[in-house]
Structures are given as C-alpha cells and as structure tokens.
C-alpha cells in the first residue's frame, strides 16, 4: 500500500461555505432597530433616563463577565456576541425613567444571572430574561416601578437639569410634584374603578401624542411609530419573521374590537390598545426572542395569539394595567409544548411520521 503522506490539509465535513451572519451581527441589527426609539426616549426623559440606561447596560456586562469567569468560559468572546447587552437594553426600555440606579442593577442581575446564566448560558434559558427581570422588579418594588415621569425633554426649560437628574437616579430624590403621573392605561384602570365612563376618561387623551411618543411611559416604549418602524425593518432584514407580531397584534385587535363593540363605555377601543409603543416593543422585539419562542411558523402563530390573548385579559380584567411581561412569561412556559406538538412534516412521511402510502 503506497501512501503519499505529504502536506495534509485538515479535513472538515458539512457545508464548507456559509452566510456571513453571526450572533453578533443579529444582535447588532436588533440594537440598531431599537436605536431610534431609544434615542427618542432618552431625549424625552432627560438625564435621569440616560444615567439609568448606562447603569443598566454596564451592570449587565459586569454580571455576565462574573458568571462567565465562574463557569470557566471565555469571557471576552462571549461578551462580544452582544446578547447580554441586548437583554439589558430591552430591560432598560421597559423601566420607568426616574427609577433609581439600583433598580437597573438589580434588574440586570436578575436578568443575566437568574434569567440566563444559571440555565447554562446563551440559548438555554426557558424564560425571556428581560421580562423575567421586569416582572420580578414590578412585584418586588411596585412604587418605584410605577412612578411615571412627565415628558421633560433634554435641555428644555422646565426639565430637571443634570444635577437634579443625578439626584433622581442616584440619590432617589424624586423631583417636586407635577413631574410624575400615571400612564394612559394606568389612568384608565384607576378611573374605571371609580366607575367613570370611558368617554369621560379619555377627554385628555391624545392619540397623536401617543403615536409619536410624546407621553408618559417607560424609558423607551413611548413611541409607537419608531418601534413599529424598527420592527418592520427587522422583518425586512429577515431577522424575525412576521408570524409572532401579526398574530399578537391581530389577537389584541380582534378581542378588543369584539368587546369594544359590545360595550364602548367600559372596554378600551382596539386603536387605543395598539397605539402604544409598549405593545409594539413587545410584539416585535420581546416576544420574538429566538430562544424562548417556538421554532415553527405555526407554533409562532399560536405563541403570538396566546400572548395577545393574555395581554388583553390582563389589561382588561387584571390588576396590572400593563400585562405584557406576564403574558410573555406565561407563553414562554408553553413554548416547549408548542415545539413538541407542532412540527414540520418530513418529506415522504405523513404528519404522524409514518411513510406515505403509494396510491397507484
């Protein structure tokens, strides 16, 4: 047997070529899609929002680095994949702008450590880390998490200046009265409990303001148009597919239409439901998280519909005005079931997995 053992090349299998897409490029594109809404939100709510945002992101990177070191995994390359940064970004988007700095730190810690790393790192978690952290914060610190700032844009005359903003974020001293209030949905809920009718409650409601984002709300979730635009761009870039957003928004629209038509005075109209940045943020950015949503298009439709149903139910009859976090977490727990039962049909087999019959 003759052997020609000269310079041997490494032999690898499988496809030898591939797309240029990587985890960091995907995370990067999602962050790019979030940027317009984030910048707008940071502008609307001023320095406190900026401080909170920076604190949340840096503490997420810190916790991730610590966990990676403890686990003996490469720190630098894993941090560079951008997943921790994105989780913290999404969490920060949902926080109240005047929340103290430790809310950001505790939230990041919860999201990264208990929401992702204890499960085994990227790709192994069952629940959406950002929503896990938000819900934990909401239940543990209800006051801080429901104090919503007025729109006090950066450099505007009546907005808190940088020193006052520093005090708000790092010393927990909220500004004088008149700078905070309730969100639209929160206001509606409290007024319903006073047995006022919807038409009265909505006298001060401006749909245009809500559409563009000039209203009280979370740090980055006020602007419907900017978030919807970012989300549609993500679909066009094929980062996410249309199934979850369409089914989520469609279900909310459908259910709220049905109830609104039945009793317009006690059920919020579908347009008001959809005219909120938070709704679009959840639909395009949070519910579409790869790790915690189903793998098949049909499964994603079911997931989105379930989220929409739960959001509507919690908003209408639940104690919390904004139910997206809980809805997403509940549907995350259903994702493995969706994946188990809803699977693609293998070529040459029927839905049960048996080979097809030949009909002559």
């Amino acid at each position: 047997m003759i052997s020609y053992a000269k310079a041997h090349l490494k032999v690898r299998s499988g496809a030898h070529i591939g797309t240029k897409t990587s985890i960091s490029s995907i995370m990067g594109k999602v962050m790019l899609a979030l940027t317009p809404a984030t910048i707008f939100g940071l502008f609307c709510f001023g320095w406190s929002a900026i401080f909170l945002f920076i604190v949340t992101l840096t503490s997420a990177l810190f916790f991730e680095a610590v966990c990676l070191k403890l686990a003996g995994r490469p720190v630098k390359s894993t941090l560079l994949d951008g997943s921790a940064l994105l989780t913290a970004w999404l969490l920060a988007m949902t926080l109240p702008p005047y929340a103290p700095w430790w809310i950001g730190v505790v939230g990041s810690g919860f999201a990264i450590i208990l929401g992702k790393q204890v499960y085994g790192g990227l790709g192994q978690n069952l629940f959406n880390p950002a929503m896990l952290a938000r819900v934990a914060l909401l239940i543990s610190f209800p006051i801080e998490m429901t104090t919503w700032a007025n729109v006090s844009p950066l450099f505007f005359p009546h907005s808190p200046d940088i020193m006052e903003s520093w005090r708000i974020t790092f010393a927990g001293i909220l500004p004088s009265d008149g700078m905070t209030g309730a969100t639209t949905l929160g206001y509606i809920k409290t007024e319903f409990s006073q047995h006022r009718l919807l038409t009265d409650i909505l006298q001060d409601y401006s749909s245009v303001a809500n559409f563009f984002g000039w209203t009280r709300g979370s740090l980055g979730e006020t602007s419907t148009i900017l978030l919807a635009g970012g989300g549609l761009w993500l679909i066009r870039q094929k980062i996410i597919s249309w199934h979850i957003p369409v089914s989520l928004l469609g279900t909310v629209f459908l259910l709220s239409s049905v109830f609104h038509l039945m009793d317009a005075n006690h059920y919020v109209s579908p347009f008001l439901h959809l005219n909120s940045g938070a709704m679009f943020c959840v639909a395009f950015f949070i519910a579409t998280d790869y790790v915690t949503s189903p793998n098949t298009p049909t499964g994603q439709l079911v997931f989105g519909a379930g989220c929409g149903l739960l959001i509507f139910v919690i908003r209408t009859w639940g104690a919390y005005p904004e139910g997206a976090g809980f809805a997403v977490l509940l549907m995350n727990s259903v994702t493995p079931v969706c994946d188990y039962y809803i699977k693609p049909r293998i070529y040459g087999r029927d839905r049960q997995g048996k080979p097809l019959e030949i009909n002559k």
Partner: protein
Amino acid sequence: MYVLYAIISLTSLGLLLGLLLGIAAKYLKVESSPIVDELESLLPGSQCGQCGFPGCRPAAEALAEGKASPTLCPPGGAVLVEQIAMLLGVDVDLSTVTEPELLVARVSEDTCTGCTRCFKVCPTDAIVGAPKQIHVVVADACIACKKCIDVCPTECLQMHPAEVTLRNWRWAKPKPVFTVESDALC
C-alpha cells in the same frame, strides 16, 4: 379565626391526598420485568472479568443490588454506562469513563510455535490452528479478553487496535463549544 380554618382545611386536604397516593402506590403498582435480566442483556456477555466479577450475570446481580457502580464495565464505554444508569434510575458522572479502544489480538507469525495453548482458552473460538501449525486470530470474533495472551509461552500474541478501513471509517463528534477549563471556580 380564619387562620384556624385555613390550617385545618389545608392539613386535612394534605392528609387525604397523601392517603390516596399511598393507596395508589399499593394497588396500582406497575409490575416490571426482573431488572437483573435486563441488565444482563445490556452487558457485552464476553465474561472477560474486567469488572472484577466472575462474569456478566454476577455483575448484573451486583448492579441490581446497588453493590456496583454503572461505570463497572470498561468494554461497554460511555454508552453502556448511560444505559445502565437510565435503567437503574441513578445519576452517573460520565467524565471518568473513557471510550474503550477496539483491540484485537494478533499472532506474530515469526514467533508462533504451534503449541495450541491459546485456542484452548479462547472463549469464542476466535483462534484457528492445529498442533505445530501457525495459529491465526479471526478478528471478527475476537473480544479482547486477553486470555490467550496470558497463556502464550513465546509472547507472540499481541493486542493491536482494530484496523480502520474505508468501510468502518466514521466522522468524529464535533469538539464541544466550551471545554471545562481547569480554572473554573464552580
């Protein structure tokens, strides 16, 4: 007052459910086949003795009684450890298990004297030969129990790795994403 009602109702509910579970455990028990037979069918059956027991059946009995660990059989490799662990319902640490190297005995024809001692002890009749004739090992039947090597007077029997041919060459498992590094703190 309410607290008392709550304590009483929950306690009695717990007791009732516990009673129901106990009854179910007794009367709805599932009969399973004797575990020793199943364990024995998993083991290779070559009676090589590397586990320290005199054969595969005694090893299966020891496993069933919990006197032996699922990692007892070197020729079985990680696959066997997992199967045994799954059957017995125990946890097992796979890091200590190494894949067995597929060895076969081979007669070195220069030094074989034809003494016939080896084929008399081969448990699978893998050695073919006759007195004063050079013996040869049928590689397919050799189970690498090494009994022949013990008795060969001229040490012409050696263990060699089984030959890899185009027929049995396989792709290796891709390397793991993260290797557990020694400086991991937990």
